[in-house]
């Protein structure tokens, strides 16, 4: 059962006047209606249109977005809930004929409509559709069609329209109180008679209620790239009549031609198709001809088991495999598992590191198929937790691939299944706060700089309760007329879909043609095609997608393995890494985890010394516990107390003990929360899942109260006390949206351990691989390099005679140093690096002239190398190199006579030598880091004068001291669960300082906090279990102290939520 509530979470409360739902019904079906998936044309969500149609008592509603079926799944879910008949259709803009609205009568005609839209979309660029009359004629069978004419006096092509669609052809007429509606409908009636096309009334609906007209005007202005004032008289409608109108209005408008209204019912009655008819089937070609998919899966599984356990498959695993294979057979998921196996097999064959995770991935079957490395013999994960017969939802397996090579896997799928049978799921890109302000502000006529200032004043992605204050801060009075209009428009616009993008990796594959299930269109990226539905749409229709995700850490780990091997080390793999190495856990307990997978964030690092992981399962818990779910559910402290034996574990009964025992009686994983609802309150697995979704999607007070009552009543009926029941409910609430599944945590924990093991035993290799896999993770290259140097790794600068494109390792005796690669150099690029390295392969460069002659690099490329100070081995400093590079012609062909002429021998000595501070800033500008010093070091004297401490000296200060520190802002993080608190990391020349900024302080210093790159802060020092934080009460910008250069250092701070 689709869950319509998932579509409601993004919308402002509807201001539609409450109309008593007219359940008696009116003899009218709206046949031409756009949702906001006709981007920048429709001004209402699908569910708003459906709800309003039901309230008005319409017989049916047709969703006819322009050249698109993107909005129909949401409308379908809403229509089911409202009990309204939904007609699926589209409005087709044809390049050589009149606009035509088509409606699908049955599954086959729906398939043809999808194919037609796919054809138009695939031959146009992203977001466009190119269709001709001939295309429509080719796919017309079974479709009903309505001709749209703006002026009945100029009909053209109606005869061929009648010829193609025969008795399925109609003439649409809409009336919007345009002054002479009687004449208009009379003209249409005459045309209808002459052309033998039955006249049908429609509303050309663009929004559900007239109150959305201003928003529609704004959207129209945005679409045309003009202001609303400029759009007046050109693109705006004269009135707000493009809404769903009550029967009284309709019957009055069409009183002279009532048949036009009655005919809407005729069309509605001819359309029988519903999206419920779509049947998803897995691709079937994965098993050999002589085997059924189940037989093939069974064979592959047992063969895999033999390889996984060469000394014999443990009895526990044998039992698990038999059980799981039986369940897979019963639920018919064998083809799905084979699809996943095929993907992993392909990746392995190409040397692409990958790992499965998700509800079904941590099964014994997946372990034996090689999809995951979580050994069922070592874990207690139960298959039923991941595949539920009752929940009836498809199994969930996400496969992470190396991020640099994931495209190969996607292209393999396109090749294997064809573009008609495979496509990426779409992602709906919706208006967020910043984009809404930008577009709405421009449309309302605000100046460019004002719009810019306003949009920079807010967070990009969320509703900001203090938006009015933000407006005032940049000089837009929220109480002024323009301020009020802008606020209202922005509020309405947030959550509106803006365009379709591609999902991060959700791939849909079908047995039959996918393009007959949903239209497929081109993505912006070359060679990518996407279906018009997003993951929620697919899920609600029960359509399988396999998430082929890109994971940077897998790239880094694979590169680690290769670097170790290339430098004479062992040949490691994820499966062969030594397990449960105490030294690695010691490192983890010290929170020495910069750069490793998952447990590198501020919150995770604060948790590590408290949780002190000592085994794999501790890592599984560590990964899952620092999540909003457990934090909001107040489960962290009870777990830590029980782990430290400060609190007794208690279980009300055996069933609950079985669910919670492995996490010391505290639910930490999403599966535990759901299971608890089952065993404690008597929920069925399906109900438990509905509970989770209800909590996740839309915290409707009425719905939540129903679930709360059912849960607590169930627990009381099972003999549990009221306090326990209330606590459980609170914990479950926390899990709704943010709980982390054990199935994912188990796979992640493997990568956590692997990355920690590599960092501990091969710090230079680890840092090198991380730098070569950028961008990934929490930390910038400068922090990774700094951390490596703190661990005794010698890091050498970029040099034209020693650096490759990637960072490399240089072995001398037993020492391994890290050489920064040319990839770090701004604006240099891989192709130029390749040229340089090839030219160098014969012998080292002897001079900058020698380098230029042999590499034939351009002036710009030479300048980039010079800016990076990469000529050190040639005895040429940065300024000299820049002078030399600037003297080159753009190409040798420009000035052939002067090639090789040197004019700088006498000049170069005259160039002033740069101060160390300037060198450091130039390093940051070109490389994003400096091995020479830290920008703050040059201002220490001034900072000392202000009483500002260094980061490392904070260790010697006491808890509660009021201190000041300064540094570059490395990251700002504001988790959704932190009640507006922002966590900031500052870096100075001695290390990093963790700051806690409460909302009051943040707001007080808003502009500096948001925009400045270098801060001086003061506040109260907090020491807790070896972790130091500064509770900030004041923020100043270092720029304001006359150190503007510090603020301009190129560090690209990372801001997270």
């Amino acid at each position, binding site marked *: 059962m689709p869950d319509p509530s998932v579509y409601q979470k993004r919308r402002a409360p509807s201001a539609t006047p409450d109309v008593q739902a007219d359940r008696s019904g009116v003899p009218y079906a709206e046949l031409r209606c756009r949702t906001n998936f006709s981007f920048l044309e429709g001004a209402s969500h699908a569910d708003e249109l459906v709800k309003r149609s039901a309230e008005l008592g319409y017989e049916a509603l047709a969703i006819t977005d322009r050249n698109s079926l993107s909005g129909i799944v949401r409308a379908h879910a809403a229509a089911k809930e409202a009990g309204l008949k939904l007609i699926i259709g589209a409005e087709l803009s044809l390049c050589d004929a009149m606009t035509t609205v088509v409606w699908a009568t049955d599954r086959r005609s729906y398939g043809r409509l999808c194919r037609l839209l796919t054809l138009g979309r695939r031959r146009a660029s992203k977001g466009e559709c190119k269709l001709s009359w001939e295309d429509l004629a080719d796919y017309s069978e079974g479709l009903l069609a309505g001709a749209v004419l703006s002026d009945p006096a100029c009909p053209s092509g109606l005869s061929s329209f009648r010829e193609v669609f025969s008795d399925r052809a109609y003439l649409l007429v809409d009336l919007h109180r*345009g002054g002479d509606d009687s004449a208009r409908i009379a003209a249409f009636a005459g045309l209808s008679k002459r052309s033998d096309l039955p006249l049908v009334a429609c509303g050309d609906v663009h929004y559900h209620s007239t109150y959305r007209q201003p928003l529609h005007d704004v959207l129209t202005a945005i679409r045309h790239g003009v202001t609303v004032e400029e759009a007046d008289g050109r693109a705006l409608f004269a009135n707000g009549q493009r809404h769903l109108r009550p029967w009284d209005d309709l019957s009055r408008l069409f009183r002279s031609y009532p048949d036009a209204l009655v005919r809407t019912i005729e069309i509605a009655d001819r359309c029988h198709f519903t999206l419920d008819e779509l049947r998803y089937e897995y691709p079937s070609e994965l098993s050999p001809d002589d085997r059924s998919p189940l037989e093939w899966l069974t064979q592959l599984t047992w063969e895999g088991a033999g390889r996984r356990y060469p000394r014999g498959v443990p009895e526990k695993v044998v039992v698990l495999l038999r059980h799981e294979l039986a369940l897979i057979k019963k639920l018919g998921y064998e083809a799905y598992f084979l699809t996943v196996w095929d993907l992993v097999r392909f990746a392995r064959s190409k040397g692409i590191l990958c790992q499965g995770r998700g509800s079904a991935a941590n099964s014994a079957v997946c372990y034996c198929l090689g999809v995951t490395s979580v050994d069922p013999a070592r874990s207690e994960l139960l298959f039923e937790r991941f595949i539920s017969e009752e929940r009836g939802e498809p199994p969930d397996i996400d496969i992470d691939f190396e991020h640099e090579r994931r495209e190969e896997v996607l292209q393999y799928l396109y090749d294997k299944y064809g573009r008609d049978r495979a496509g990426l799921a779409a992602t709906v890109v919706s208006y967020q706060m910043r984009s809404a302000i930008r577009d709405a502000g421009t449309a309302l006529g605000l100046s460019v700089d004002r719009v810019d200032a306003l949009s920079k004043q807010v967070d990009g992605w969320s509703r900001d309760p203090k938006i009015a204050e933000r407006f005032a801060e940049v000089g837009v009075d929220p109480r002024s007329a323009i301020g009020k209009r802008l606020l209202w428009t922005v509020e309405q616009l947030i959550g509106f879909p803006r365009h379709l993008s591609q999902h991060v990796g959700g791939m849909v594959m079908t047995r039959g043609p996918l393009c007959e299930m949903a239209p497929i269109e081109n993505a912006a990226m070359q060679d990518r095609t996407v279906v018009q539905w997003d993951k929620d749409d697919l899920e609600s229709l029960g359509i399988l997608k396999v998430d082929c995700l890109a994971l940077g850490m897998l790239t880094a780990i694979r590169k680690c393995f290769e670097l170790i091997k290339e430098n004479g080390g062992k040949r490691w793999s994820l499966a062969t890494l030594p397990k449960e190495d105490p030294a690695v856990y010691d490192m983890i307990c010290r929170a020495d985890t910069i750069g490793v997978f998952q447990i590198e964030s501020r919150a995770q690092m604060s948790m590590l010394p408290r949780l002190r992981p000592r085994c794999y399962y501790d890592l599984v818990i560590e990964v899952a516990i620092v999540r909003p779910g457990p934090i909001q559910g107040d489960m962290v402290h009870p777990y830590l107390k029980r782990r430290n034996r400060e609190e007794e574990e208690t279980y009300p009964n055996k069933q609950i003990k079985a669910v919670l025992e492995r996490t010391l009686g505290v639910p930490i994983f999403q599966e535990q929360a759901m299971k608890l609802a089952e065993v404690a309150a008597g929920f069925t697995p399906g109900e438990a899942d509905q509970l989770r979704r209800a909590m996740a999607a839309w915290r409707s007070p009425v719905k939540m109260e129903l679930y709360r009552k059912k849960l607590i009543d169930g627990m009381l009926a099972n003999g549990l006390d009221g306090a326990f029941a209330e606590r459980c409910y609170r914990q479950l609430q926390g899990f709704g949206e943010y709980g982390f599944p054990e199935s994912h945590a188990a796979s992640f924990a493997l990568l956590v351990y692997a990355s920690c093991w590599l960092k501990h035993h091969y710090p230079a290799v680890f840092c090198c691989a991380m730098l070569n896999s950028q961008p990934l993770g929490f930390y910038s290259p400068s922090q990774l390099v700094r951390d490596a140097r703190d661990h005794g790794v010698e890091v050498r600068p970029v040099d034209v005679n020693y650096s490759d494109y990637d960072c490399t390792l240089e072995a001398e005796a037993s020492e391994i140093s890290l050489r920064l690669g040319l990839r770090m150099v701004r604006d240099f690029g891989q192709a130029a690096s390749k040229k340089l390295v090839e030219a160098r392969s014969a012998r080292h460069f002897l001079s900058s002239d020698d380098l230029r002659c042999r590499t034939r690099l351009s002036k710009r490329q030479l300048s980039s190398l010079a800016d990076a100070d990469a000529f050190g081995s040639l005895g040429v400093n940065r*300024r000299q190199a820049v002078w030399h590079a600037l003297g080159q012609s753009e190409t040798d062909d420009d000035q052939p006579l002067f090639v090789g002429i040197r004019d700088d021998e006498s000049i170069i000595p005259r*160039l002033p030598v740069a101060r160390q501070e300037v060198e450091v800033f130039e390093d940051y500008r070109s490389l994003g880091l400096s091995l020479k010093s830290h920008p703050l070091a040059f201002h220490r004297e001034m900072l000392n004068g202000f009483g500002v401490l260094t980061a490392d000296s904070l260790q010697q200060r006491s808890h509660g001291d009021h201190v000041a520190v300064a540094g570059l802002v490395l990251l700002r993080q504001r988790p959704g669960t932190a009640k507006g608190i922002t966590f900031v990391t500052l870096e100075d020349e001695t290390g990093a300082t963790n700051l806690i900024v409460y909302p009051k302080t943040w707001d007080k210093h808003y502009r500096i906090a948001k925009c400045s790159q270098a801060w001086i802060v003061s506040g109260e020092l907090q020491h807790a279990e070896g972790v130091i934080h500064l509770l900030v009460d004041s923020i100043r910008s270092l720029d304001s102290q006359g150190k503007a250069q510090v603020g301009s250092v190129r560090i690209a701070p990372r801001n997270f939520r």
Partner: protein
Amino acid sequence: MHWGDTSDEGERNLLRAVDSWLLNKQLLGDTAIAGSASLALAVARYCDSIGTESADCFDFRVVRDTASVLDRLPVEALRTNDKVVQRLKSVGVDTVGLLVSLPRTALPARFGTELNWRLGQLLGEVDEPLGSAREQSAIEAEFQFDNALRDSDAIEAATSRLLQQIAKELLIRRRGALRVLILYALEGDVHRETSLVLRLFRPTASCGEMQELAGLHAESQRFFEAVTSIKVIVKSTAPLGTRQRLLFDEACQECTHELVSLVNRLACRVGHECVLRAEPRKSVDPTRTYTLSPATDTPAKRYELSDSKAIRLRQLPLYLASSAPHAHVEASSDGAPLKVDGTCVTRCWGPERIETGWWRGRGVRRDAYWVELENGPRLWLCRDLRSDRWRQAGEFI
């Protein structure tokens, strides 16, 4: 003018005088004296960065030792583009002094050819002529009577002569008058005057046109007191328009001579504010689809309306009531008017619903009807959808 006994003293005094002159004009300016205009401009602009050590601001604003000034003058003072400045700084050349120490031949390849040219200007090697902008003198003419007189013919004749003079001047400047003020000084102990303004629909340098308009004004002008002098001032001008250049140049955008003459004459007769010109404007609100403004205040360009727009405009009454009077209307259940102020409606079109303009303020929400009453009048009625009140927005004549 004597500025001082020494050149140093003289230049300082000159600067002081200029500063003080600017101040008197309520202007603030940076001033400097140097061997070249470019250097003076650079010193004036960057005096803060080069003169901080000096107690007397004139020490550095009068450049004596060019080399020492160049050593402190930032490269930005060369007035070259930001990219070149950045490149210079990237090799450590951040003052003009440092740049001057490098061989000029090495610079164009690295920093473009403009740099040496700018450097030459700064060092006085390349001329940098300074142009002066001079305000155009007013076009005016005056006639003093030997004896004050009231004779209208004599006054008109004198006015005509003055108009001939300004017409000549206009032709020399290739401009046409749009507005001409004629001032008549009246006899008496206290200075008093009376005036008239000639407004022209199209810029003109034609003495005849102006004289004709002045004559029309004079017909209604009575001088009850003697006039001592007449002054004619051209208050507003525009470039003279071109007449039809080709024999069959139908695309000529100028209005016809006859129309211009008609507008000018009408404006004289009934007042310029009564001769209006409709300008099309885009809006879904019919009352905003054109604007009316005095014809003599708007450019005399022709425009054409498309058929649909012309039809649309014809649907509106010629005169819209500026504050439409309320009307008592009895309407049918679907809103159509049946009686207006007790008179039966015989024909009715509508409604045309207009809901727009919310971004300008309160916005418009109304239904408009075209009705014909049984006693003849044809009205444009509007019903405000917020208040449900009827107004008679216009009448077709």
